[in-house]
C-alpha cells in the first residue's frame, strides 16, 4: 500500500497533467503539470467543476456528458481518448490529448483524466507545414521562371538573327536597280512580325526579372536544420540518419533562404534516397568556409555516382524522378549561380558515397 504523500509526489512528478473528478464533475485531484498547462494553481480549482478548464461551448455541456455516460454506459471518451480543447486561465485555448479512465471508489464513481499538452507539437507541425508549402510554391514559381528565362534566352538568339537578316535583305532589295516593290512590302511586314515576337519575349523577360533573389541575412545553421527536418518527415520509416555538423548558430549569410532551402532539400532528399538500401544509412551536411565562399557539403553513404551518371546530372529534363519537392539539379544549379555561387559534385571515389557541394559567395554584409 502506498502512502498518500507518496501518491502526491507521484502525481506531481508526472510529465502529463492528471485530473481526478467525481461524478458531479468536481475536481478532486489536479497535479503540478496541470498547473503549468492551465495557469491555475491546484488550490484555485480543486473543489470546482472541471468545466472551469474548458472553453464555454464544451463547458456548458460537460455535466450532461457525464450524466449521459452514467445512464447509458456508452463511452464517448472514457477508455478511448481523443484530442480536445482546454482553456488556459488567460482565456487562450490549448490543444490537449485526453485519455480518461474510471474507478468505483468507496466515495463514489470517479474519473481519471490524463492530459498531454499538444501546444508544442501543434506549433511544430504548423511550422513544418508552412515551410513545406513555401517550398512547394517556390518550386513551382522557380520552375516557371527557369522555363521562361530559358525560352526567352533561347528564342532571343534566332529571333535576333532573323530580324537582322530580314532588315539587311529588305535594304538590299530597296537598293536593287529595279526594286521589286511587292517583295519589299512583304519583307517590311516580316520585320514588323519579328518585332512583335521580340516584344513578347521582352514582356516575358520583364516578368521573370521581378524574381531576382531576395537576399537577406539568414542563420545558416538554422536553415540547414530546417532542411533536415523537412526531409526527415518523409524518412521516418526507413531509419536513415540525417546529421548536420555545422553548429555555429551565430553565423549569418546573405541569401534567399527559400531558394537555398530548395537546393539543400533537393540534395538531402536525393542523398536519403541513395542510402535507403545501404548497410550504413547516413547523410551528413557539413560546412566549410574560406575568405570568399561558404561550401555546404551534402555527403551520403550510398553507392556513389560514376562518371557516366555525373555527366547527365545537371542536364535539364534528364531526371528519373517525377514527384515530390525535388526541383532537379539543373534548376538547383541555376539558382546557385543566380546567387553568384555554384553547385558541384565531387569526383567518384571507389567505396565512397556521393558528395555534392553548394558554393555560396560571402558578400560584404555577411558577418561571422
Amino acid at each position, binding site marked *: 500500500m502506498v502512502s498518500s504523500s507518496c501518491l502526491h509526489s507521484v502525481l506531481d512528478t508526472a510529465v502529463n497533467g492528471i485530473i481526478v473528478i467525481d461524478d458531479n464533475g468536481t475536481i478532486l485531484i489536479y497535479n503540478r503539470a496541470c498547473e503549468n498547462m492551465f495557469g491555475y494553481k491546484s488550490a484555485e480549482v480543486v473543489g470546482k467543476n472541471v468545466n472551469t478548464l474548458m472553453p464555454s461551448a464544451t463547458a456548458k455541456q460537460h455535466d450532461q456528458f457525464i450524466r449521459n455516460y452514467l445512464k447509458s454506459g456508452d463511452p464517448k471518451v472514457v477508455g478511448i481518448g481523443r484530442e480536445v480543447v482546454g482553456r488556459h486561465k488567460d482565456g487562450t485555448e490549448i490543444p490537449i490529448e485526453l485519455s480518461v479512465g474510471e474507478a468505483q471508489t468507496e466515495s463514489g464513481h470517479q474519473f481519471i483524466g490524463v492530459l498531454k499538452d499538444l501546444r508544442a507539437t501543434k506549433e511544430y507541425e504548423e511550422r513544418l507545414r508552412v515551410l513545406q508549402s513555401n517550398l512547394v510554391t517556390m518550386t513551382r514559381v522557380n520552375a516557371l521562371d527557369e522555363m521562361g*528565362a530559358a525560352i*526567352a*534566352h533561347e528564342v*532571343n*538568339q*534566332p*529571333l*535576333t*538573327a*532573323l*530580324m*537582322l*537578316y530580314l*532588315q*539587311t535583305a529588305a*535594304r*538590299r532589295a530597296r537598293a536593287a536597280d529595279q526594286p521589286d516593290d511587292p517583295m519589299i512590302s512583304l519583307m517590311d511586314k516580316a520585320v514588323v512580325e*519579328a*518585332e512583335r*515576337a*521580340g516584344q513578347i*519575349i*521582352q514582356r516575358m*523577360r520583364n516578368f*521573370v*526579372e521581378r524574381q*531576382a533573389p531576395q537576399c537577406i541575412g539568414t542563420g545558416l545553421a538554422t536553415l540547414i536544420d530546417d532542411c533536415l527536418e523537412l526531409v526527415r518527415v518523409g524518412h521516418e520509416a526507413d531509419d536513415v540518419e540525417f546529421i548536420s555538423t555545422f553548429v555555429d548558430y551565430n553565423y549569418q549569410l546573405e541569401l534567399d533562404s527559400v531558394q537555398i532551402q530548395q537546393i539543400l532539400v533537393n540534395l538531402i532528399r536525393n542523398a536519403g534516397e541513395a542510402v535507403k538500401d545501404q548497410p550504413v544509412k547516413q547523410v551528413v551536411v557539413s560546412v566549410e568556409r574560406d575568405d570568399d565562399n561558404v561550401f555546404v557539403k551534402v555527403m551520403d553513404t550510398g553507392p556513389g555516382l560514376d562518371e557516366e551518371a555525373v555527366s547527365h546530372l545537371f542536364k535539364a529534363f534528364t531526371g528519373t524522378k517525377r514527384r515530390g519537392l525535388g526541383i532537379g539539379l539543373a534548376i538547383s544549379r541555376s539558382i546557385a549561380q*543566380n546567387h*553568384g555561387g555554384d553547385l558541384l559534385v565531387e569526383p567518384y571515389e571507389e567505396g565512397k558515397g556521393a558528395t555534392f557541394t553548394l558554393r555560396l559567395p560571402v558578400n560584404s554584409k555577411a558577418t561571422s
Partner: protein
Amino acid sequence: MIYIVEDDVSVRDAIARMFESLELSCAAFADGESFLSDASPRIDDTVFVDLHLPGLAGSDLIEKVAALDEAPQIVAISGQPLWKITRDLPKITTTPVVRKPLKEQDLLVYV
C-alpha cells in the same frame, strides 16, 4: 573597323552581314580568346561583345579590352535578365548594353 564577339553562329553571321551590306568593314569572332589573339582593335574601332561567352567570360573580355592603351569603344550585347547583366558587367566601366532581341538600329547607333 567593327568587331563582333558572339558565340551564336547565326547571330554572329547576321550582324556581320548587316554591317557588310552597309559597306562597313567588320570581323567576327566566336569567343574572347580568338578575338584577343587575332584582333588588334584601335581607338576609333567598335567592339560588340556578347556577355554570355564560352571560355573567357564576356565581362572579363570587356575588362581586358577596356584596359588597352588605345581602347576602342565597347558595347555589350546580352539576352540575359537585367539583374544578371548588372551582376556580370564590370562595375568600373560604363559599357553600354544592347539587349536581345535587337534590331539593326540598336547596333547602328554605335558605329
